[in-house]
């Protein structure tokens, strides 16, 4: 394992933990999308560019839908 792989592993673990620990869903969404990017970089470093590309495109699509859902839920409950 190279140094850059080890650093990215640690960052990904920290990112995942941060997603869980943040309680406000609106902030959580932004951490989630950053976590997707970290995961993409990790897959890239582990020589899996195909999976990295999938993770990055899905990671850029889901936060948007979560934000829209939060807006729908907020309006329904207000």
């Amino acid at each position: 394992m190279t140094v850059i792989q080890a650093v990215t592993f640690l960052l990904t673990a920290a990112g995942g933990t941060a997603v869980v620990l943040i309680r406000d869903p609106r902030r959580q969404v932004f951490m989630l999308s950053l976590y997707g990017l970290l995961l993409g970089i990790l897959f890239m470093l582990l020589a899996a560019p195909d999976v990295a590309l999938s993770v990055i495109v899905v990671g850029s699509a889901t936060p948007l839908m979560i934000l829209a859902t939060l807006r729908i839920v907020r309006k329904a409950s207000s």
Partner: protein
Amino acid sequence: MTPTTRRLVCFGSAAAVGGLLLHGLVRLPSFGSYRGPYGDVLNATAVGERHATNIPSAVNFDYRAFDTVGEEFILFVAVVGLAVLFREQRDQSCEQQQERRRHISEAVQWVGIGLFGFLVLLGATIVLHGHLTPGGGFQGGVILAMAALLIYLLGGDEVLERLGRRASIETVEAAGAGAYVLIGLSMLAAGGAFLENLLPLGQSGRLNSGGMIVLLNVATGVEVSAAFALLFVEFLEESRKPPREPS
């Protein structure tokens, strides 16, 4: 149960679970070790057999192309189900919301227009080069859907509205999913098995190589881009809807 016994049970079970985890971690294979035979076999034979240099694509759209039919239809059914659910609710609650016009800042418009062409080209490149370089129908399709989303954000929902209440996106989605199956059936008609790669394989590394893989990538790209575009538009329409009247 007294607090003392509760604590004892908790620590006891935590120690047991921790011990099992540790036992599992110690026996893990070392970093980077690979024991399965399939990866090595494919790495050695796939380029020679299928003339496709991106082996994940060769696996997804040739060796196990039949599994990909299932995955394609999971996405198709999920998105159609979502559209049915959301539309049912919207049509009941609001009719006048189409009248509202959004204000879109000039900066967003310029950035959006600049990005649009780039996204379309990037998505098309990733779909069409799926058999040569990392990427393929799914990844490129999502990027193309982002371009469609950009039109929506730039106020193009009036354009989409004029195209017949988004029915056209659904048609494109269905056409993509159908084209995949039709390609498979045409291989059956040509005398092979369902989704057997019978097309000329071409020269490895060229755009027109890999036979059926390119066509399946394009069909998947069309289906995925329309599915995600529909998903985005339905979610955003639902979030723009005025709050429901208490009935």
